């Protein structure tokens, strides 16, 4: 069985197909002209272009960060095409006008866009390469005053809202990748939940990279007005390619008084093959701001894909009594590397944060948890609870934990727990002795390990997450 534990027979990535569709792409390279072109293609107002150019000029002076615990070759930012859109009508009035090939693509991914086929209670914005191709259930949502559309459309249709909040959580010059995103972002989702409205559907965005030599730079902005609630889910996948593709997204969440945002991610970008060829570089900045009193933002992520993951979804707890949560499962198999965690910045009084991180490493995967909990001077009686658990499968992988704690108010209460465990032969043998196969045993042990996170996911997605985990660890234990 020892050989079995080390055997690495990863099942082929299920979503690795390519859609043969004509696309309108900008030639590789990045310059002010390219940014002007993108802005023009999207029919943006002048202020938006100015914002992009400001970000670009600052980005030029910034250096790619290399403090994370991952290694990769240099990224040639001039070799990437920053805009690729499937050729179709500029604006689509209904699904009938969407290219059938696109509908078929999402169907294959398990995301049928026809509304009657959708999971009950989920509205989807589908983003293909650089553009949003369809947003479902818009009318149902509109009845409650909920706005859910692509960010490009929001910039044109709701410029005041976008101008107020875009960059208010992740400034255009926040970091190297966020600045790059601010300069070139092409699409993404926008949601606004009005005062006192409990969003009647789960909102969801599905991101698909299709074209080669492109990057995906989406930008998502969600604003929950006072007393509102929204649950949002993000999913993604990409074809199998030998090249590394860059995904540098920015997500901003804003919760006003008593508002609540629950943001769940199932990240399944192509992870590369067992030798480490290809795969997505997932360099993402996600941050939420609990601006109002009693507001709450929860991040739940299940990260099974990408060659390299660099992301720290965090919360700025500005409003008094606001709450931030981070629940994460990150899996690295084969040659995958992940450096992920969260930042909880406590500004307001009686703010609370919870961090539950589960890292699973198999094969030669390297999994790092990196988290910052910062309690500022004015944040009296702030509380944080952190729990970081790592699980190792086999003996060639690694788990690393870097918790940073910075407390400037003596009334704070901090708790930190950490554990590292190994799926041992004894555990698997025990399950086998009860009649379970090795695969069922591993899946059971891993799912049990992740349970605290899975229970935070909306029901359908918890099932999806468990399944995905099974696939991404398949063959890692015999």
């Amino acid at each position, binding site marked *: *069985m*020892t050989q079995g534990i080390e055997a690495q027979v990863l099942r082929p990535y299920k979503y690795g197909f390519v859609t043969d569709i004509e696309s309108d792409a900008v030639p590789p390279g990045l310059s002010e002209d390219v940014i002007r072109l993108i802005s023009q293609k999207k029919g943006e107002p002048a202020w938006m272009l100015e914002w992009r150019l400001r970000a670009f000029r600052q980005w030029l002076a910034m250096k790619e960060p290399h403090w994370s615990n991952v290694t990769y070759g240099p990224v040639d930012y001039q070799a990437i095409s920053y805009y690729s859109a499937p050729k179709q009508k500029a604006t689509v009035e209904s699904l009938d006008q969407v290219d059938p090939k696109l509908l078929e693509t999402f169907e294959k991914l398990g995301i049928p866009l026809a509304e009657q086929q959708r999971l009950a209670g989920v509205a989807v914005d589908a983003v293909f390469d650089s553009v949003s191709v369809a947003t479902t259930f818009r009318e149902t949502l509109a009845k409650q005053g909920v706005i859910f559309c692509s960010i490009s459309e929001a910039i044109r249709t709701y410029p005041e809202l976008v101008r107020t909040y875009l960059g208010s959580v992740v400034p255009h010059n926040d970091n190297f990748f966020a600045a790059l995103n601010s300069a070139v972002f092409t699409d993404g989702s926008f949601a606004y939940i009005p005062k006192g409205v409990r969003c009647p559907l789960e909102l969801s965005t599905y991101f698909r990279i299709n074209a080669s030599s492109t990057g995906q730079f989406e930008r998502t902005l969600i604003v929950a007005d006072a007393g509102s609630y929204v649950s949002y889910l993000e999913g993604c996948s990409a074809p199998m390619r030998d090249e590394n593709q860059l995904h540098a997204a920015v997500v901003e969440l804003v919760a006003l008084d008593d508002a609540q945002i629950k943001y769940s991610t199932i990240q399944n970008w192509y992870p590369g093959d067992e030798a480490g060829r290809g795969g997505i570089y997932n360099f993402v900045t996600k941050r939420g701001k609990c601006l109002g009193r009693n507001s709450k933002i929860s991040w739940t992520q299940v990260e099974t894909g990408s060659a390299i993951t660099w992301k720290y979804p965090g919360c700025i707890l500005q409003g008094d009594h606001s709450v931030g949560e981070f629940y994460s499962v990150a899996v690295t198999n084969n040659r995958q590397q992940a450096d992920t965690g969260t930042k909880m910045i406590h500004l307001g009084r009686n703010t609370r944060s919870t961090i539950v991180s589960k890292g699973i490493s198999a094969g030669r995967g390297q999994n790092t948890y990196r988290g910052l909990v910062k309690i500022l001077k004015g944040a009296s009686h702030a509380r944080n609870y952190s729990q970081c658990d790592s699980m190792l499968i086999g003996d060639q992988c690694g788990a690393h934990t870097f918790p940073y704690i910075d407390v400037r108010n003596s009334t704070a209460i901090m708790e930190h727990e950490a554990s590292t465990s190994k799926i*041992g*032969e*004894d*555990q698997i*043998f*025990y*399950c*086998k*002795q*009860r*009649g*379970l*196969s*090795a695969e*069922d045993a591993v899946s*059971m*042990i891993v*799912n*049990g*390990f*992740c*349970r*605290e996170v899975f229970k935070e996911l909306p029901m359908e997605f918890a099932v999806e997450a468990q399944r995905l985990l099974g696939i991404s660890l398949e063959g890692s234990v015999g």
Partner: protein
Amino acid sequence: MTGPLLQVRGLHAEVEGREILRGIDLEVRAGEVHAIMGPNGSGKSTLAQVLAGHPAYAVTAGSVRFRDQDLLALKPEERARAGLFLAFQYPVAIRGITNAYFLRAALNAVRQARGEEPLGPVEFMDALADKVKLIGWDDSYLQRSVNEGFSGGEKKRNEILQLAVLEPALAVLDETDSGLDIDALKTVAGAVVELRRPDNATLLITHYHRILAHVAPDWVHVLAAGRIVKSGRRELALELEERGYDWLREEAAV
């Protein structure tokens, strides 16, 4: 089936190149309880692990037939599904998986092998009620993670609960009695007696005589240095209790 349930012949096994079992011969028939006793390091637990197919042990010679099958040719999970159950000396914990879920998964794996329909959660809970009572528990244990935070005694009871649910043809109890207080010992022994049937058998590995006062064995075997050096009826256990093992070692050395 006419022959013995379990037939072990000339079994040799080693771990990390060290020979532990040096020629075990043993026959267990349906309806019987056999006690295996012996000093520390005599190979009792190794025998249990080898029968269950633990990968750390290598069989170097001999044969084992179980229900007319070549046991050694089966994978551990196949042995379990064929009706061999090992109550572990040190049961492992599985975090985040409830006892109820684990038991049902195990039972359904075994049922499937027997060609029976899997049980749904509701039917399963019904079937479980009596078994839980048998070991003196209430339902709260079913919602706890498998063995997580369980005391030594609770883990042993949990093994017996699994035994009661899976209803194997042969139960190998590896020092299930050690670490139990008197009341727990009575409950566990009572459950083992309760589960006896004409078509199943128990191999009771133990250090002490005390469980044998509750579970009357048909046969007692003494294991020393990897061999069965003496077999007898129940009285042998009493003799061991009085005289210890040294006299047997001397006898065996002659």
